[in-house]
């Protein structure tokens, strides 16, 4: 049996050059690569991205932050970042255990596009975009347009995600992430909620809420975001969230929970998130 090819480029131009030929499975942290292969190892061509060390790390620019594609969850947790990253940091601390956080990359979480990917709701609430590079150049897509469904993304086979870009909020902002699993630790999420509020003169000047694990890809809640805008920023925000605001979700029955439970839990988590965000000083 053929082993398959293995390539570990050290520079981005080598990597995108190799991708022109197609057929590669891209591996970085690998935390979701191997579990799918335990039962049967099959020949495959592995493009190991971990040599592209320039793609690891977080940089600040005048109007945005740039999170390199190979930035690991632990890197994010350790980085000194403004308060509006607190939601993403909370998500990072709940991605598996520390052993997983030490290997798993943020771009891998996005490219893998699991409906239960913990990073997606938090990055949607940060209004993130992703940068994709190929031999032909670079393009930038809003994250919401990048994730197309369960394990489906807009990444073309010859493209590589190089960074995640998050704009700086125009006003003082606060952020939270809540996750519900069957137990406290090391579980795949049943429901997750991420929220970011921009607050000015005691009122909500902008809101972004996203729910994960309740549709093929995490969803923003635009009707709720509109209802929150202009309201006093206090714990009373929680009761503004109604079941109708979650009508756009399409939860499924699976081994972790049934759809009705997910819908109920999502509303409760949204309300808790808003109570928490509104109550912050």
């Amino acid at each position, binding site marked *: 049996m053929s082993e398959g090819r293995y390539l570990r480029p050290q520079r981005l131009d080598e990597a995108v050059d190799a991708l022109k030929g197609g057929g590669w499975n891209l591996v970085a942290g690998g935390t979701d690569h191997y579990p799918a292969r335990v039962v049967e190892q099959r020949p495959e061509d592995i493009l190991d991205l971990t040599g592209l060390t320039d793609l690891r790390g977080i940089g600040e620019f005048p109007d945005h932050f740039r999170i390199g594609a190979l930035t690991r969850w632990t890197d994010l947790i350790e980085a000194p970042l403004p308060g509006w990253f607190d939601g993403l940091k909370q998500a990072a601390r709940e991605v598996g*255990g520390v052993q997983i956080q030490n290997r798993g990359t943020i771009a891998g979480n996005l490219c893998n596009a699991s409906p239960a990917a913990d990073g997606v709701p938090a990055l949607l609430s940060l209004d993130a975009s992703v940068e994709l590079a190929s031999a032909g150049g670079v393009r930038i897509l809003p994250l919401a347009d990048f994730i197309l469904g369960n394990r489906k993304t807009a990444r073309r086979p010859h493209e590589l995600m190089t960074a995640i870009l998050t704009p700086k909020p125009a006003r003082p902002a606060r952020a939270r992430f809540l996750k519900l699993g069957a137990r406290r630790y090391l579980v795949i999420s049943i429901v997750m909620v991420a929220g970011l509020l921009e607050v000015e003169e005691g009122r909500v000047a902008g809101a972004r809420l996203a729910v994960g694990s309740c549709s093929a890809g995490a969803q923003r809640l635009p009707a709720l975001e509109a209802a929150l805008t202009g309201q006093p920023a206090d714990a009373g925000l929680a009761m503004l969230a109604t079941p109708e605001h979650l009508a756009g979700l399409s939860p499924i029955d699976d081994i972790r929970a049934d759809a009705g439970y997910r819908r109920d839990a999502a509303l409760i988590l949204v309300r808790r998130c808003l109570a928490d965000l509104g109550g912050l000083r």
Partner: protein
Amino acid sequence: MNTDLMVNGQAQRLDADPRTTLLDALRNYLHLMGTKKGCDHGQCGACTVLVNGRRINSCLTLACMHDGDEIVTIEGIGGPDDLSALQQAFIAHDGFQCGYCTPGQICSATAMLDEIAAGWASHATKNVASLPGLTVEEISERMSGNLCRCSAYPNIIDAILEVAAGKEQS
């Protein structure tokens, strides 16, 4: 393909299929049987080793991705004649029953104590701006990547707390 690894301070050259996990390389090629295969997909932590000082699940990574890396397994942490402080504390506190998860628990706890010393916050840390306290809740959270199906958790936590308290005083 060939991969050069530094395992427990010794240079090792591995000649294996690129799809070989680091766990299988350690056990089947280097015959270091202390690292255990529990679930083989990143849920139990029995295969935890240190790579360049960081704890990772060796079942979730390919050996060839670690060319040039420094790897420490339970054999490198201490043997019967030179037990580490954590190994001694696990014995003193009966921090196991069947013992299968123990090498992973000890590798993980070894790295965790370094993380606490470096001041990293965890999900259980109430105030992320302050140094993490050595509470049962904090240790449980930080060790959540290591399961013990005999449920020796109270004794495991006692063992870790004893060593952590000793480090704080020294």
